């Protein structure tokens, strides 16, 4: 029987079978979702047009009209987006509004929201792995207990303010609905795709966590620790020269002599009577702690240490319209996307309609700074001291001495999930608590160092309720009643209403630090809140939990006779006018911004008799550096003495404005840095071993150096302890000028000082959380004007500055102005990613109108109809 054909067939089939198996095997091998960073599966997921990165580019442009079914709402909510992508909500109830804001927040800023809640919860390692500083950030925030604080707030809100809690629930539903829609349509923000994870559902707790992170940013300072080190090394007299209790020059919010006294309180004793018992812990421990904090700041984007703000309000008596003008520009980190998300809404609340516009934090459905149709408000940081560090005598690892007995620490277990290329690894730690709070712990050379942290944010606080109610106020007096709930982070509220009233209150709940017998410790010694506290001392100073300095006891002004109120993180009042002043804060900003704003207001009023909204814009964008004006003559003199005639002429003819084409501005800032460095760094080098601590001189107020430069050129700190000669201010300034010129020659690559333009040195540095790796996520590095301590405070690294500029015109709120440094959208492919950035940098504004109906929204770009499902 002939079987050749059959055999051939069998061979062929066998060959095809092998082909089939091989093809299948390669496909499976190729597409298996290996748990590695860049598996082919994950690459396919990224490059596929309809589910990868490209779909995010397509959907960056929203349709002109959309209808979205939201099962959680009762009535239709209309959202009209204007040409800057600002949503204008029109809702029948606050619950529907919260739902819709949740949806829109998530659509525009979901990854930012998720990132921030992860910062608070100490869960960044789950998405970034253990890259530089991430674990340290997670550890610090877990120990300090931002999430625990948010949880305490949640319990309180549920119990005392259920209406507000319901809104947070509705908001969370809105966010979660958007998450589901984005998951289905594969349009989750690009960061999720690049990091290969999906967001968990949003909860009301998460909204409160966002509040905690802002609170930490504005009050979580470790200044007590570095002041301690300076005191320990230099002694009380020198320290008080460098960092005086009252700065050499102060500009107060309350005009001296205008009393805001609140009853019978003992005045603080004179500084010379102070008795200080300095702790004897090692400088290495503090160094480690400061280093830990620095690492954390890398990841903690919204508000690093360099925070500041301006706000002021001018009575109608001095405005061209006869109604108040209110300005605010909070100086926070220039992040990508911006810290703020702008909204406008018209909502029915009970029988009333509220028309509100301002900025929200993505993650919180409440306008934080803004205005309704009656009252407007703005914030600056009080610079309040709401944090203390305790140290103890230890019997062993678990027992510490407190009030005549050994106490056992309490422990809480924390589990970290750290992302690796092969999945997650778990790490378990135990956080230890004393009666004062959780312990920050370090082991150095086998020795254990521990500080308990007492921070206001660990308590349940009620500012969420205050902020929610602000939008319901009908005049400043009602507004003021709501400020009683604003506890942390303490903020200088300035406010005004359409009836012509203006006011200010340094709202916050401040610790009342008392001895065991109940007497106030700060009145005994104003340095006490500025230093770590001995928790094992029988006379231990503790926060009196049943007797705070409450918001209604904070300094305030209502319609002051001088017609305006200016705050710029400066000291609120002289101690003779407000006796609790040392209790509430000590890290105030120098007088520069406050005095410049006052000066410009006064100048304008003297010139014209009134101020206009255009004047307010000019003041908000002012870049005159008061410190430079103060030291200009000195620098010119030094330049002349050292033979730099061209620089002498340049400085003499300089208007002290930090503009991008100024070369004098460049020379001044670089010279000043060297001048401060050469004045203080020699003594700090002598006292401290660690390089980081040797740089603590940077924390000294500029006003100290300014004061001694102008009044005592032979001040001992000017002497360089490393030389035999006796230096003074002039010789140090000359040396600094030489160094500055050498630096600038190198930096610009030319000796021609006409080329040393300030804008080439000072470039915008607005970073995305992933921007160090993915630079295209960052905003452009445009040349930036302004400088630290200018009114237009675009800081020295141009990574922080006015995060929102608002000017409210109470004669016609539709004539108000605003701008954010960037754009509304967190999608890098959206036209609204940074469409306001150039305007912001150039000092331009958008109209901040309050349309009453969807039809009245100017330059409408798109519209969404949220309909009940």
């Amino acid at each position, binding site marked *: 029987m002939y079987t050749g054909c059959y055999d*051939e*067939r069998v061979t*062929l*089939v066998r*060959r*095809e*079978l092998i*082909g*089939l198996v091989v*093809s*299948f095997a*390669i*496909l499976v091998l*190729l*597409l298996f979702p290996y748990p590695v960073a860049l598996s*082919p599966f994950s*690459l*396919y*997921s*990224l*490059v*596929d*047009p*309809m*589910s*990868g*990165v*490209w*779909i*995010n*580019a*397509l959907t*960056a*442009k929203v349709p002109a009209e959309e209808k979205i079914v939201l099962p959680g709402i009762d009535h239709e909510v209309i959202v009209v987006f204007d040409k800057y992508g600002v949503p204008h909500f029109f809702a029948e109830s606050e619950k529907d509004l919260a739902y819709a804001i949740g949806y829109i927040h998530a659509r525009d800023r979901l990854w930012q929201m998720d990132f921030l809640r992860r910062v608070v919860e100490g869960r960044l390692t789950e998405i970034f792995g253990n890259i530089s500083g991430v674990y340290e950030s997670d550890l610090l925030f877990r120990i300090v207990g931002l999430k625990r604080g948010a949880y305490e707030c949640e319990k309180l809100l549920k119990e005392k303010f259920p209406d507000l809690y319901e809104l947070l629930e509705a908001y969370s539903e809105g966010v979660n609905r958007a998450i589901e829609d984005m998951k289905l*349509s*594969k349009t989750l923000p690009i960061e999720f795709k690049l990091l290969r994870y999906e967001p968990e559902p949003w909860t009301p707790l998460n909204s409160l966590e966002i509040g905690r992170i802002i609170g930490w940013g504005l009050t979580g300072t470790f200044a007590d620790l570095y002041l301690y080190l300076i005191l320990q090394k230099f002694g009380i007299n020198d320290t008080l020269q460098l960092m005086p209790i009252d700065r050499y020059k102060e500009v107060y919010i309350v005009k001296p002599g205008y009393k805001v006294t609140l009853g019978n309180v003992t005045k603080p004793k004179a500084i010379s009577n102070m008795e200080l018992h300095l702790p004897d812990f090692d400088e290495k421990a503090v160094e480690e702690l400061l280093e830990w904090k620095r690492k954390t700041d890398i990841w903690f984007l919204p508000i690093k240490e360099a925070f500041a703000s301006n706000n002021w309000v001018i009575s109608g008596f001095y405005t061209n319209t006869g109604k108040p003008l209110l300005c605010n520009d909070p100086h926070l980190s220039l992040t990508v996307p911006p810290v703020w998300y702008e909204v406008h809404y018209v909502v029915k609340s009970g029988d009333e309609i509220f028309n509100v516009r301002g900025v929200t934090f993505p993650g919180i459905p409440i306008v934080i700074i803004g205005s309704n149709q009656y009252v407007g408000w703005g914030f600056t940081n009080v610079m309040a001291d709401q944090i203390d560090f305790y140290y103890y005598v230890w019997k062993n690892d678990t027992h510490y001495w407190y009030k005549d007995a050994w106490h056992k620490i309490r422990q809480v277990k924390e589990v970290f999930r750290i992302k690796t290329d092969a999945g997650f690894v778990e790490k378990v730690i135990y956080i230890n608590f004393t009666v004062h709070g959780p312990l920050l712990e370090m082991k150095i050379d086998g020795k254990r160092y521990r500080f308990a942290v007492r921070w206001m944010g660990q308590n349940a606080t009620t500012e969420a309720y205050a902020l929610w109610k602000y939008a319901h106020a009908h005049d400043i007096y009602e507004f003021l009643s709501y400020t009683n709930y604003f506890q942390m982070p303490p903020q200088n509220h300035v406010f005004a209403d359409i009836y012509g009233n203006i006011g200010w209150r340094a709202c916050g709940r401040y610790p009342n630090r008392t001895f065991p017998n109940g007497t106030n410790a700060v009145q005994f010694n104003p340095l006490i809140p500025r230093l770590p506290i001995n928790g094992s001392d029988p006379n231990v100073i503790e926060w009196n939990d049943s007797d705070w300095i409450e918001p209604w006891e904070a300094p305030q002004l209502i319609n002051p006779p001088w017609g305006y109120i200016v705050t710029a993180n400066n000291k609120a009042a002289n101690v003779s006018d407000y006796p609790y002043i040392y209790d509430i804060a000590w890290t105030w900003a120098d007088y520069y911004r406050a005095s410049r704003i006052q000066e410009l207001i006064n100048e304008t009023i003297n010139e014209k008799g009134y101020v206009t909204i255009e004047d307010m814009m000019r003041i908000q964008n002012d870049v005159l550096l008061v410190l430079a004006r103060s030291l200009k003559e000195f620098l010119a003199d030094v330049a002349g003495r050292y033979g730099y005639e061209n620089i002498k002429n340049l400085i003499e003819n300089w208007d002290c404005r930090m503009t991008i084409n100024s070369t004098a501005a460049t020379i001044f800032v670089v010279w000043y840095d060297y001048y401060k460095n050469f004045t203080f760094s020699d003594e700090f080098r002598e006292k401290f071993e660690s390089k980081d601590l040797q740089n603590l001189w940077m924390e000294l107020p500029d006003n100290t150096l300014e004061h001694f430069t102008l009044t005592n050129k032979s001040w001992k700190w000017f002497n360089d302890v490393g030389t035999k000669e006796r230096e003074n201010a002039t010789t140090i300034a000359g040396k600094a000028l030489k160094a500055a010129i050498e630096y600038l020659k190198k930096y610009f690559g030319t000796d021609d000082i006409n080329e040393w333009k300030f804008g080439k040195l000072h470039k915008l540095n607005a970073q995305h959380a992933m921007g160090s790796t993915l630079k*295209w996520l960052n905003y452009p590095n445009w040349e930036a004007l302004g400088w630290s301590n200018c009114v237009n405070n675009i800081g020295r690294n141009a990574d922080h500055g006015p995060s929102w500029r608002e000017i409210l015109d109470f004669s016609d709120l539709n004539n108000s102005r605003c701008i954010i440094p960037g754009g509304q959208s967190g*999608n*890098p*492919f*959206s*036209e609204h990613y940074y469409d306001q950035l150039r305007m912001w940098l150039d000092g331009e504004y958008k109209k901040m109108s309050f349309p009453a109906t969807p039809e009245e929204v100017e330059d409408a770009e798109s519209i969404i109809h949220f309909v009940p499902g």
Partner: protein
Amino acid sequence: MKRYGFLACFLITLILAVLLELTRIWVLLIVAGVIGGFLSKSFLRAVFAGCLGVLVCWLLYIAVFYTLNPYGMSIALSVFSLFLGLMVVLGAVLGALSASLGYFLSQVLMPSEKGSGK
């Protein structure tokens, strides 16, 4: 079973890929490649049809996206130029492999007279 030439297989793969892409589940593109390859007269025709079918499908989507949002897509293309190159390679590999799978499957289930003809 009737088998087709390159153009027909390419078009079948392309159309199926375009439709399946709408599900936003890229793994389903394998189905388009498998069917295109299944119907192919020869192994090489199958591989090329699958390779080009998936690749052209993806590029078509990119072109449509660009037409709908030139601003966003121009930024995306500039920052993801590497991804675009990667997309070409990965699309081609996915199409080729799935078409090859389809072709061999057809040969096993319904062997052609000539076997794996050239």
